[in-house]
């Protein structure tokens, strides 16, 4: 198949359409506006439904209703919008309904800014919802990977009957790259939904018995059993969905841990460090939850410093330290969301950290 040059946000929307997305709900927020714009004219052509919600609160709940009644559903937003969706996402975990959500993240806190950021790491990996629930989160490093993840995540969401989040950032949303688009899967016809999803609320004419999708469990013992059942699913997710890429770990003196846009800058920094005679490698988490702790077993004996490189104040650092388990020193190279360092800045700060940890 041939590649096309596409803006990230438009490619992400197209990937969802090709995955058989029936419904998209969104509210305008920068830097992801090209997604609802693209969906508004392209999704109906593919037989789907676009609806501009009155708020992110409404958007996530529209998504819940559409998904609970069996539709493949995609939503997108950016950081403050995701904060507004958190209650809904926690509810949807509890109700065990699948959907795919994309966060094209920006700097914070508060309204923050509209430039690329990774300060949603804690928001997406811990969740801002109440109660015990988890959402698998994948962090692509480019447009192609994001397209492939969106395409695949509908199946993961349905397999687990849980939301799946994809964390991109404003850089990926706004830039253009050549991308190979996957084939159209087609939208499940409405009269076939109950065969594919016998739990969906499609009207009792279309399935045995009566379907009710709910979250409230007034008896504490019943609630506890439900949460334990959810955590059996999450344990399976930890086994099946943990993903990472390792780069040049052999003989590396220093290893970066970076995801998304920051991992691309670190890849450049690794080359620049090599030119200066310093062997550097990288662990790139693709799943942020489950975090790839196992990746750190691959660290070479040569490695004396692991650097968490992030576009925030060090939100992933806790997970990195937890994964390193004190085996080597852990440092941080970061700029706050909105400010993206150059690869040269990363090199200079790496050299300084290496000097300090001698």
């Amino acid at each position: 198949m041939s590649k096309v040059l596409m803006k990230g946000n438009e490619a992400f929307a197209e990937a969802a359409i090709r995955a058989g997305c029936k419904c998209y709900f969104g509210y305008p927020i920068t830097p992801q506006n090209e997604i609802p714009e693209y969906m508004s004219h392209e999704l109906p052509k593919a037989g789907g439904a676009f609806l501009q919600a009155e708020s992110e609160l409404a958007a996530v709940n529209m998504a819940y209703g559409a998904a609970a009644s069996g539709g493949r559903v995609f939503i997108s937003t950016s950081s403050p919008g995701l904060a507004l969706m958190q209650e809904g996402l926690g509810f949807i975990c509890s109700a065990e309904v699948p959907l795919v959500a994309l966060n094209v993240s920006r700097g914070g806190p508060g309204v923050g800014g509209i430039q690329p950021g990774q300060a949603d790491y804690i928001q997406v990996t811990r969740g801002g919802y109440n109660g015990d629930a988890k959402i698998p989160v994948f962090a692509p490093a480019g447009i192609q990977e994001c397209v492939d993840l969106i395409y695949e995540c509908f199946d993961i969401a349905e397999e687990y009957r849980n939301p799946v989040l994809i964390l991109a950032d404003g850089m990926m949303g706004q830039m253009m790259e050549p991308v190979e688009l996957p084939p159209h899967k087609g939208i499940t016809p409405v009269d076939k939904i109950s065969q594919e999803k016998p739990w969906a609320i499609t009207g009792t004419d279309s399935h045995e018995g009566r379907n009710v999708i709910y979250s409230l469990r007034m008896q504490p013992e019943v609630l506890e059993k439900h949460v334990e059942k959810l955590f059996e699913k999450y344990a399976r997710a930890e086994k099946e969905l943990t993903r990472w890429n390792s780069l040049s770990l052999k003989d590396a003196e220093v290893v970066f841990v970076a995801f998304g846009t920051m991992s691309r800058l670190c890849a450049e920094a690794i080359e620049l460090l090599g030119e200066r005679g310093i062997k550097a490698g990288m662990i790139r988490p693709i799943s942020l939850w489950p975090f790839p702790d196992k990746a750190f077993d691959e660290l070479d004996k040569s490695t004396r410093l692991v650097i968490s490189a992030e576009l925030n104040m060090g939100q992933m650092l806790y997970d990195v330290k937890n994964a390193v388990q004190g085996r080597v020193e852990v440092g941080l190279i970061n700029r706050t969301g909105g400010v993206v360092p150059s690869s040269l800045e990363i090199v200079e700060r790496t050299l300084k950290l290496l000097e300090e940890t001698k």
Partner: protein
Amino acid sequence: MKTVFAPTSGMTPVDTSYCPGCSHGIAHRIIMECLEERGALGRAIGVVPIGCAINAHHFMNVDMCESTHGRAPAIAAGIRRVHPDKLVFTYQGDGDLASIGAAEIVHAAHRGEKFTTFFINNAIYGMTGGQMAPTTLIGQRATTAVDGRTVEQAGMPLRVCEMLATIDMAVFVERVMLTNPAQVRRAKAAVHKALDIQEARKGFTFVEFLSACPTNWGYAPVDALKWVEEKMAAYYPVKNFRTVEL
């Protein structure tokens, strides 16, 4: 033997969790009777609110889902996008709809969503134990207004039908009450009319039921019904605000 009465198959054969004298039971029953009479139970999908009626899915014998607080109209809008041919409804109380869910109901009406909202207005928060609602009358006592609601402190009670009737795409808006058999029959006619208009895909349809909450009002059930007729109906007139010819 000739059957002169049978309970509707639209209700599950269990006791409800509602207090004696509460209007939820009657409202549930007439809505489900209407769906049964239309042969629509098997193609109906309902959304229940946060509040006492979150339990409605135990009693209404159709496919249903629970809602986050106030967002039932957004959820129904989502269901409607997947199932354009089904009969979709939300069932919401006054805290859920008129307070936390005010944005969702206004925009569902504004978009002319093809579903029906059944609005139970009993002028109080029931499930949480009698706090003031946006619909609580001036002078009415609540646990967050122990000497009665005042205009100075909490403004005037919100009239939802009157507000929605200003929205072009809210094509059927009617307020009913459930205080005696004649009123219940009127209410049932309004439910049927709303469902007729939904099925004709004309726009958003809305029925408000003035309802009694004897427990949180602190009245005996019969006195509570009198209070609906004398006090609530005086501020919230029982009438049709808008309809459309089919």
